[in-house]
């Protein structure tokens, strides 16, 4: 692997840092407390859809296994149990086994914030307000101008106007069930019945032999649903995922779907939100399911954060939280086609 320097991306990088600052301004104005957290942990929440980085802490001939956190969730939820209230983390997170691409980096900046006494749809309102706030600030010539001063000589800089031209006054809301019907002609009955779903997928030409419902579902979602999201003049909020895709979310009364949404602009997924599951027994059950899935997929067997379950027993307040890919968000606001264009330095193959 090598270290690459991209000095030509300095301007984009400065805009990216400006967007980070706008986000933090917004959250602090709204009363969210910023928390700084470790990126190394001795145990993690088991999540079957991602792989982790493993390392060792060595002292006097002894060793302890440590993991880079794939998200700050296990830490922030503990603090919520202790009554910290609305809070956020904006910093590094790490996911292994992810090839760098225009939307992925194994080391990335995550914004995760939690709001107490709020459902996932309350977070949706907050996010929309944040998008409007970023857009408004990016269109302020005086603010943008001071950034350009830092990375260019006055004489060779070009005036640019950033920000989105889409309408940020409301979401285009669509449920996962409606989206599968509209974009993939898969109806509710087929979507939730694993056997019918696989049969339908096979009929559509997907290879289903030896693959699970979750795998085929993700494939169809990525191939047929996602490219349509956030392209109708509004950002799209797609909500209520089948319960198989929500290890830490509260279920809806229908028992089939969970209170999870994702939001998209121009086909790019930017954030993922849940009404948090606070039932510790249900959470413990899902932990074991995820551990089994990880074993089946031959993923790293890491220590399980049992303290997380203990904290839930003590009582997680009714709350919702969202994780946002900050680099992707900046990429979309700056009209770039890759998060790589925001970086002045990276490590790649």
């Amino acid at each position, binding site marked *: 692997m090598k270290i690459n320097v991209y000095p030509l991306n300095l301007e984009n990088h400065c805009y990216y840092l400006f967007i980070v600052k706008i986000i933090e301004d917004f959250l602090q104005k709204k009363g969210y407390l910023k928390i700084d957290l470790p990126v190394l942990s001795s145990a993690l929440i088991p999540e079957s859809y991602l792989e982790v980085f493993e390392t060792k802490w060595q002292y006097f001939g002894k060793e302890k296994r440590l993991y880079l956190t794939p998200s700050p969730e296990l830490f922030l939820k503990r603090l919520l149990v202790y009554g910290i209230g609305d809070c956020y983390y904006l910093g590094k997170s790490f996911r292994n086994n992810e090839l760098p691409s225009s939307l992925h980096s194994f080391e990335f900046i995550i914004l995760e914030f939690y709001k107490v006494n709020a459902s996932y749809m309350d977070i949706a309102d907050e996010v929309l307000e944040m998008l409007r706030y970023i857009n408004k600030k990016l269109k302020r010539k005086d603010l943008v101008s001071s950034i350009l001063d830092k990375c260019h000589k006055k004489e060779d800089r070009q005036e640019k106007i950033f920000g989105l031209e889409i309408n940020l006054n409301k979401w285009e809301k669509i449920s996962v069930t409606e989206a599968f019907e509209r974009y993939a002609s898969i109806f509710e009955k087929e979507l939730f019945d694993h056997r019918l779903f696989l049969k339908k997928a096979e009929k559509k030409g997907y290879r289903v032999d030896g693959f699970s419902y979750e795998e085929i579902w993700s494939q169809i979602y990525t*191939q047929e649903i996602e490219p349509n999201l956030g392209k109708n003049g509004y950002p799209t909020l797609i909500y209520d995922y089948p319960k198989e895709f929500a290890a830490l979310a509260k279920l809806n009364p229908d028992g089939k779907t969970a209170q999870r949404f994702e939001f998209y602009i121009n086909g790019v997924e930017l954030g993922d939100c849940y009404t948090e599951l606070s039932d510790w027994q249900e959470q413990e059950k899902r932990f074991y399911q995820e551990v089994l899935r990880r074993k089946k997929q031959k993923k790293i067997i890491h220590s399980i954060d049992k303290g997380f379950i203990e904290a839930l027993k003590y009582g997680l307040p009714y709350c919702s939280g969202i994780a946002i890919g900050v680099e992707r968000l900046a990429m979309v606001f700056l009209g770039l086609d890759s998060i790589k264009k925001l970086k002045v330095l990276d490590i790649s193959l």
Partner: protein
Amino acid sequence: MKINAGNLKKGDFIRYQNDIWQVQKAEFYAPGKGSALMKTKIWNVKSGKNIDVTFKSGEEVEVVDVESRLMVFLYKDNENLYFMDEKTFNQYSIPLSAVSGLEKYLKEGEKLYVYVYNEFPLSVRPPLSVRLKVVAAEEAVKGDTVSGAKKPVTLETGVVIMAPLFIKAGDIVIVNPETGEYVGREGK
């Protein structure tokens, strides 16, 4: 040979739904739910059609060994392009549908790489650029000085492209044969 879809890369030839396709773009994608995927854009060597396909990262894909062989372009008719392998003097024909318009920029006698699979010619690798003589160009209208203004010019193969106003008949222009765009003028 079968490989994991996660290892697909640009330029690979694969067998997909009983056709042979070339990978134009392959990008890893982890949707944060379910498993990781490989998003690809693939090009059908027979029909010249591009489609988007998402593979599951654990899915096996058959990679086919396609050879690219340097051949001389002999001529074309209404259906095919005809090539000759200069080493064996064997002649091959490729249907026009497989080259999606490339034939408009090819001169007889030119050497090009032809994709061959099991001695069967599939398609032509588009050259990055081609050099063609301008046979007809209108005089630029005086006073039309808008920067970037272009006019139609006819090239020796009969194709008409848009070129800058200063291009005259007799000039040799460099063209991207995949897009038909003017790239530059050959120095005299």
